């Protein structure tokens, strides 16, 4: 076990997997950085530091700086995957899914099914998401619900360095397109990471803690916020079952339902607006599949039906927080 942060876990996993599998290539904007400048290649190494050193080690055929052309980045990844390679495309911000949506949604996601199951499309799309750093309406969004709704895509959101390694390794060894979400506020989160070959299977939620009174389901940074809320609640003798989904497609429905059957109370925390959100989806899952277990209506802790604002105070007001999560838990417990 080595201690490292999520950024290092991703970088080291890319290095290790590219060394293991010569079919893996990386492409995106500034994944090398500095091409065509006085500073020269590797002057940047990826603005998030998650691709540095790859170009030097694996060369320009496998580590490809692209123009700012998100449709072509995702489309090229789709084509390279059909042609037998394992591309890792990077979207500098998950918001740019909007620019490249056709290649994700109408192309990559559907190839296997449309073509009668006779092909695979092992492309990984890494994308940086999340609010909390005043990056405003077009650089802060958590578009995982949008992509979770698309059959054919898998959606992954690591919250610990160990999961970052295990889930990225799993993505790179699998044969389906994987949307790999990296929260910009979580890159510095440190933790122990298992050495050697380490895979975390998709569709298996992580039980962060078991408290038995209320089920809190979260993903991404909302897991960390929920932990803080759970600490406060624990001091008052309230026990939270905290479930980190890890992957929203496939989703570990059993983990959610099993917990709600015990607690009878559900809080879903989702870093996105409420309509057609993951919170709404999981609330519907529980309402339809565990109705008789419920002792209170599901609580959805989400942002408002509004874009994400810039100003610090406004952004805080937009985001779910440990305080709003704690309040939701207390509300569901107070329901009679």
């Amino acid at each position, binding site marked *: 076990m080595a201690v490292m942060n999520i950024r290092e876990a991703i970088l080291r996993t890319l290095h290790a997997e590219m060394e293991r599998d010569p079919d893996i290539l990386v492409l995106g904007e500034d994944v090398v950085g500095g091409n065509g400048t006085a500073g020269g290649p590797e002057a940047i190494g990826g603005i998030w530091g998650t691709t540095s050193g790859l170009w030097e080690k694996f060369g320009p055929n496998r580590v490809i700086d692209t123009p700012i052309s998100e449709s072509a980045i995702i489309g090229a990844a789709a084509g390279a995957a059909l042609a037998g390679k394992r591309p890792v495309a990077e979207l500098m911000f998950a918001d740019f899914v909007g620019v490249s949506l056709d*290649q994700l949604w109408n192309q990559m996601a559907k190839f296997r099914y449309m073509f009668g199951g006779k092909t695979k499309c092992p492309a990984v799309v890494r994308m940086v998401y999340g609010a909390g750093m005043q990056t405003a309406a077009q650089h802060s969004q958590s578009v995982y619900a949008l992509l979770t709704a698309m059959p054919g895509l898998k959606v992954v959101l690591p919250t610990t360095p160990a999961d970052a390694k295990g889930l990225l390794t799993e993505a790179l060894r699998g044969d389906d397109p994987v949307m790999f979400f990296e929260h910009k506020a979580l890159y510095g989160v440190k933790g122990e990471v298992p050495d050697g070959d380490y895979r975390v299977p998709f569709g298996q939620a992580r039980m962060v803690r078991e408290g038995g009174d209320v089920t809190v389901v979260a993903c991404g940074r909302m897991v960390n916020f929920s932990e803080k809320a759970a600490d406060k609640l624990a001091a008052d003798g309230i026990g939270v079952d905290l479930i980190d989904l890890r992957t929203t497609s496939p989703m570990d429905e059993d983990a959610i339902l099993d917990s709600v059957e015990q607690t009878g109370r559900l809080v879903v925390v989702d870093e996105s607006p409420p309509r057609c959100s993951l919170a709404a989806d999981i609330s519907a899952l529980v309402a339809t599949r565990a109705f008789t277990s419920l002792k209170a209506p599901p609580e959805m802790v989400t942002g408002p039906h509004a874009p994400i604002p810039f100003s610090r105070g406004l952004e805080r007001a937009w985001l779910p927080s440990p305080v709003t999560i704690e309040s939701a838990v207390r509300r569901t417990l107070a329901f009679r």
Partner: protein
Amino acid sequence: MLQLGHDQLLGAYRRMSTIRAFEERLHEEIKTGEIGGFTHLYCGQEAVAVGICDQLTVEDKIVSTHRGHGHCIAKGCDVRGMMLEIYGRAEGLCKGRAGSMHIADLDVGMLGANGIVGGGAPQAVGAALAAKMDGKGRVGIAFSGDGACNQGTTFEAMNMAVVTKAPAIFVFENNHYSEHTGVEYAVGTSLDIASRAEAFGMKVWRANGCDFFDTYEQFRDLLEYVRAGHGPAAIELDTERFYGHFEGDPQRYRGPGELDRIRDERDCLKAFRKTVTEAGLLAEAEMDAIDAEVHALIDAVVAEARAAADPDPATVADDVYAEYY
């Protein structure tokens, strides 16, 4: 004139004839109501698909368009499997999930027809980047129409191919119509489409897409250039669409006598016959015999497709993923 062997010429004629017969038969069968959805016929453009694909290996990848039957047949997709697919049958090439617009056969390097105009060009760049990794001189080819030449994806793909020196080939089939709108309106430059590719920094070729031999020769030069590692290239082919945008299109946008004129003057199959007989390379009887075989094949696959079983509804959610958890 281009020197091709007797068997190569007969093979090319067989493939062009197969595309023509396949499409003309579909034109009739669609009227029966037995085939659902949208179908876009490739008739008139056969020399392009065959003139290009005859020079490729199975390791070279192509991406196609919504008007993709010709590219499929030319690249080697099974005609029976295609017809069953267009009828939506269980034994169709894509198990009835694709229909006319999404036929693919990865085993022959056909990465898919595409219902989204301009959807394929970036994928051809990806296939080309994969080929570049392998370093064996293979190429990735995007077939695009004059409609797709106006999509941003096509522009992005051309630029990215140039920047990355990918062995990508952009084939622009200019049939003068993007859906129901004329190329003179929709392509907002006085220059041709090849000039756009040139502006992105590519070497370009131009050919008469109604002339198999011109298409073949120009593309041969292009292919040699790209296989040699010079980066991407483009070719624009002036061609004709004998039918409407889709089957059922009343084609009110056509000029008086236009359809008769293009069939008289711009039919690539007639032109091929004329060239090879005048040069004494093939006999009319040889080509008549091929036509008869092709028609018998199409009769057989249509009969089979009409009688074939539909997919089991229980399979509706199969094959969404390679791995289920």
